[in-house]
């Protein structure tokens, strides 16, 4: 709903962090680690892109854009809260096979011992994001 690109990027980072905390609290450290590792690279790339393409907008234009966005999306937070409340009342009776909570299932072990390949993948994704910004955005700013 925000009109500013950087605010959107910050919002995404905060949402991702809260989601990771919620997942940890739900006793799913592996899923939380996936969430953190996938979003870390994504948010980095988005921040760099946002900073690169951000341009100054006049104060009047900013207010007009803000009003337009609020008018379009005011219902969205209400829908999300209502759906979440409805889903919390549903009891899923499924034979899920969740890994047992042990000392070994901490973030360090999961990231470093179990998910090596994903770490390598995340490093490459960060590199790709950096290249993308350099190739697609950098010269625009200089033009």
């Amino acid at each position, binding site marked *: 709903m925000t009109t500013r690109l950087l605010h959107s990027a910050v919002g995404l980072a905060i949402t991702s962090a809260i989601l990771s905390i919620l997942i940890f609290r739900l006793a799913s450290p*592996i*899923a939380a680690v*996936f969430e953190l590792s*996938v979003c870390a690279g994504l948010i980095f790339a988005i921040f760099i892109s946002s900073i690169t393409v951000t341009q100054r907008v006049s104060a009047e234009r900013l207010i007009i854009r803000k009003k337009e966005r609020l008018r379009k999306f005011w219902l969205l937070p209400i829908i999300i809260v209502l759906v979440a409340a409805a889903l919390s009342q549903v009891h899923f009776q*499924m*034979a*899920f*096979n*969740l*890994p047992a909570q042990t000392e070994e299932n901490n973030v360090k072990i999961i990231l470093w*011992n179990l*998910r*090596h*390949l*994903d*770490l*390598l*993948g*995340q*490093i*490459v*994704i960060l*590199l*790709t*994001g950096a*290249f*993308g910004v*350099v*190739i*697609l955005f950098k010269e625009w700013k200089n033009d």
Partner: protein
Amino acid sequence: MLSLFLLLPLLGIIILNLPIKIKMQSVALLYVLLLSVSQVIVVLFHPDGFWNRPDVWGRFFELRLYVDNLTLVLLLSIGIVVFIAVLVAWHKITEPKQRLNFVSLVLISLIGMNGTVLLADIFSLYVFIEITSISSFILIAFQRDLNALEGAFKYIILSSLATVLMLGAIASLLLFSGDTSFASVSEAVKNNSKNIIVISAIGALICGFFIKGGLVPFHAWLPDAHSAAPTAVSVLLSGVQIKTLGAYTIIRLVTSVFGYTNSVAYILMVVGTISIIFGALGALGQRDFKRMLAYSSISNMGYIVLGFGCGTALGMAGAVFHMFNHSVFKSLLFVNAAAVESRTGTRDMNKMGGLASRMPLTGLTSVLASLSAAGVPPLAGFWSKLIIVIALWMSGYHAYATIAVLTSIITLAYLLSMQRRVFFGKIVEEYKEVKEVSFGLVFPELILAAIIVGVGLFFPLLFNSFIMPISSFLK
């Protein structure tokens, strides 16, 4: 040893982007060409026990990578197509910094594709698919003209949908498996085969791969992206990427994880058939050379999925063999398109004519590629299509086999039409002085033509030693 397929390209990216005052573009070209040729040589001529040697290079990351005959075919195709794509790019891109950026992105794409075919973990598969996709977005928009940006944007949107489907499916399957390895997920799917969440997850994953592979009805991004991208990128996308991210992933997950059921077979065969027909009809009406080739890719992806869908070892072997053949003849056709565009300045086939008299090598290799694509004997494409049709007929799918054969006639029609409009007939006045392209583009044309002719002529020797053993991964 397997980890070198990932670590060497990564090392290349790091070295090529160091702030050292030497002519990095020459180093970049040499590095990526040597890497791709090494990949081809290792796949073709590896000694016994080569793949089982301890992976000392990957110890730091302890990469768990696996290889079988299906992986080898893809690694071979990837090596060949990357080699060709970089040669084409070197001819078309002249600015040193842009060349370096291009090679860096191709190396990233190489990591993504190699990783995709070497993995046995569903989440890591997703990560490496995304590496390939993200590098593709940037490669498509590389020259930042309006059409390329539009093509990249369409690809991003549909690819994001695929990402959401795949990630949601993996998360759902994780609930039942507790782990993301193929073996664990396969066990979980077997034990919960009637569970609606598992069934939905399988459907979502398959849809995600259909989007990545550009199969109908998820093909909307493909014609724009492949035609608007720089030709070297089109070679990469059509030549190997859609097969790695679309066809290979479907084959791998159906055989190693989900299991081959009647429902899956039905979906694959229907989608494959529709893609064959739609792609062929779409190509028939095109004026833009590259756009026609893009629709042709949709049709050929349909053949691959249809061959795999019939479920027999012969069908599987035919599908994988066709993946290899399509990589070769489609890459050659795109190289021909690059050659023609560089000399005429246009891709509009209706404005061309008689170019074979001025560009004989391009004309000859184009004819070979077109005939192979149309399934004319004794070229390579004929054999793979024949194996698929025979597999379908022997499995009792007579209607599908008939459609595959009839659509080949449409394929021949649009390719012959392309040949007539571009290379034959009376030469257009403004192109009377054009010359053959330089060795930089003729060399890849000749290599690919040699592969098409060689594989076609030596097919009887290759059938038992190379083609049928492909399906051994089913065991």
